[in-house]
Each structure stands twice: as C-alpha cells, then as structure tokens.
C-alpha cells in the first residue's frame, strides 16, 4: 500500500459515507451539511489525481457558492410545517431502495467485469505535469482542432441567461 492508495481509500470512505448520510437524514439542513462534506471529499479526490485547479474550482464554486445558496434557501423556506406528514409508505421507500441498489449494483457489475486499460494512481505522471494550467487556458480560448471555444462561449451565454432568469423569477411583484 503506497500513500496514494491510503489517501484514496480514506477519501472514498468519507465521500461514500456522507453521500449516503446526506440522503437518509431527516433534517434538510443536515443534508446540506453532509453535501458540503461530500463536495470537499470530491475536491480532495481531484487534488489526489493531480488536478489542483479543478479541486480549487470545486471548492470555490460548490462549497463556497452552491452550498451557501442551499443554506440560505433552506433558511428562507424554513417553516414548512411538520415533516412527519411527508414520510413515504414503507412500500414506496423499499421500492426506491431496490431501484437504487439494483441500478448501482448493475453499474458495479459492468465496471468490475470490464477490463479497463488504466494507469495506476500516482504511477508515472507527476502532479505538476498532469494538466498544466497554461494548457487549460489555451484550450479554453482556442477555436482550432483541440480548442473548446464554442462550449466556453455557450457557458458564458448560459450564465448570462441564468443571471437574468434568476433576477426575473425571484423578484418581488
């Protein structure tokens, strides 16, 4: 067991545990907190893969932006009555559990039986050369063969539409 394996196993256990807790807990504010832990764990996985910029974006956008939005929305819509009225029947809950377990199990079967041609984690690429930030930047603003200018512009238009839509939907009438 090398260091990468131990770090990966710890992070994977952390992420899996908190993602299950996040959907099984009764209180929604706790679900949001567990989601925050899941997102931090995912950022740790990105750092482990050598993608430091991606991990930083994950922490800034998800943990710093989206989770704060969730917390504010939960507090703004706080008093929604008794949550006990909204629990499902046992049959429906069991059906959902079976569907989720069968779906995840089927995926895991395919993953385990398929022989991926994969490198080992931390094998030959050093962390600095995994994806240099200059390559990311030139790929985002390059319209040529290996460029991603069109999706970049599409995302910028999407964000503009999102700003305008959010303002119009949430404004006071």
């Amino acid at each position, binding site marked *: 067991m090398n260091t990468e394996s131990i770090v990966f196993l710890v992070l994977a256990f952390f992420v899996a545990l908190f993602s299950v807790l996040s959907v099984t807990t009764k209180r929604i504010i706790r679900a949001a907190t567990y989601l925050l832990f899941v997102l931090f764990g995912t950022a740790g996985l990105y750092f482990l893969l050598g993608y430091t910029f991606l991990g930083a974006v994950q922490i800034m956008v998800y943990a710093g932006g989206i989770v704060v939005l969730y917390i504010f929305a939960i507090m703004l819509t706080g008093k929604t009555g008794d949550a006990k009225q909204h629990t499902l029947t046992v049959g429906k809950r069991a059906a959902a559990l079976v569907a989720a377990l069968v779906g995840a199990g089927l995926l895991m079967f395919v993953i385990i039986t398929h022989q991926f041609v994969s490198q080992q984690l931390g094998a030959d690429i050093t962390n600095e050369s995994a*994806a240099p930030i200059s390559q990311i930047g030139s790929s985002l603003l390059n319209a040529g063969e290996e460029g991603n200018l069109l999706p970049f512009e599409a995302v910028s238009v999407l964000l503009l539409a999102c700003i305008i839509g959010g303002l119009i939907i949430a404004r006071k009438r």
Partner: protein
Amino acid sequence: MNITIDYFLILSAVMLGAGMYGFFTRRNTLAILISIELILNAADINFAAFNRLCQTGIEGYVFTLFSIAISAAETAIAIAVMINIYRMLKNNYVDELDTLKW
C-alpha cells in the same frame, strides 16, 4: 494494492445510487435538488478519473469545469424558482404543490 480507475468508478456508482435513492424518496424540493447535486458530482468524478487515468488529453478536465459551471447555474435558477413557489404557496413539498395557476 494499486488504485486504478475501477475504484473511482465504483465510488462514483455508490454516489449515483445514493443520489437516486434520495431523488425517489425525498419530498422537499431542496432535498431533491441536493440529490441531483450528488448525481452530477458522481458524473464529474467519472470525467476527471477517465481523463487522468485512461488517456492523455484535457477534454475530461475541461468538461468537468463546464459541468461545474452548468450545475451552478442550474442550482441558482432552481433555488430562485423554489423561493418564489414558497413565497406564493407557503409550501415546498412536492406532494402538496398541486396548484399550477390560480
């Protein structure tokens, strides 16, 4: 023990299963949205892991960035809609939101 891509994919499948379970069982709209975040996050892990461990390029990296941006936009709009619904109907449980227009 060497960590190959299978381990990342299995972790992502676990996260996807948790998200599916939450999506089916939750009744609060914000909790459903949290489950959707879990599913999107599982997809992001897949992108990054495939890009890092199976080939040499940066397409998966760049598309993870786009995916994060899109899910941020989606969350902002969805939360605006839900706050507006709560302001009008004083409720945000999906089994009670049955009034489309009044």
